[in-house]
């Protein structure tokens, strides 16, 4: 039984690391700050959650603390991404040429 849990846990850890890898690949490939935040900071949410769940399968007695880490992650991760993105936008970071529309900039110009 414990062997089966170990195998499930290892598979979840593997899946989590694949998502984390894709997140870092996105960080390298994306053209501007906003898209990098999208790929790099947030694609990692699922990766980290899968790693936490996988660890919980291998060490069931750590379950509660892993759950707490997961909850903190879900509450703090989006806040930091939003604050970073907002700061970048306020300081007029160059946006990728591919950007088709920026209604936030339009509205800020109108109000100022």
């Amino acid at each position, binding site marked *: 039984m414990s062997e089966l849990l170990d195998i499930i846990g290892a598979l979840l850890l593997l899946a989590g690391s694949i998502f984390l890898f894709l997140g870092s690949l996105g960080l390298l*490939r994306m053209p501007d700050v*906003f898209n990098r935040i999208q*790929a790099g900071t947030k694609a990692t949410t699922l990766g980290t959650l899968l790693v936490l769940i996988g660890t919980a399968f291998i060490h069931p007695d750590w379950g509660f*603390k892993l759950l707490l880490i997961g909850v903190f992650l879900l509450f703090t991760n989006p806040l930091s991404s939003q604050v970073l993105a907002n700061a970048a936008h306020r300081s007029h970071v160059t946006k990728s040429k*591919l950007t088709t529309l*920026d*209604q936030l900039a339009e*509205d800020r110009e109108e109000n100022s």
Partner: protein
Amino acid sequence: MPAPDNKKRDLLILIITLFLFWLLLNGSLAVDVIVTGIVVSALITVLFYQGLSFFTELRLTPAAILAGFRYYVYFFGELLRSNLKMAKIVITPSLPIQPAIVRVRTRLKSRMGRLMLANSITLTPGTLTVDMQGEWLYIHCVYRDETAKEQDTHDLIAGFESYLEVMYG
């Protein structure tokens, strides 16, 4: 503004939540741990009297609780789906992105409901809340269909919004 009774209830719930967190972190029921926990939880609650907690403005009706469960099911489904979509974009050699920051209006009135909406949008890859002004959310999308019409942007938040509307209003 919530009624005073609600405020008291919210403060009590905040103290209990913080205290349970403390117990989980400590994993012990020794007297000194419990006393410290109660004192610190009460202190934090007094200091952050005006702050938001997960239970602020949460409606405790059966419909709201059911919506809460369905919200989490939907949220994790969405998280998985959008992560796969994002992974596909990242490994495609041509990097097919069409970023845009769009303006979306939310129907949600409560502060906590709006906070949860902004966080849910940010947690699902592909969309990122950049700013929020009153009922307007500014969302950065990695891929936005240029042929999409103005009113279609509401689709970005419609799923989360419908559950949060029942939970928080």
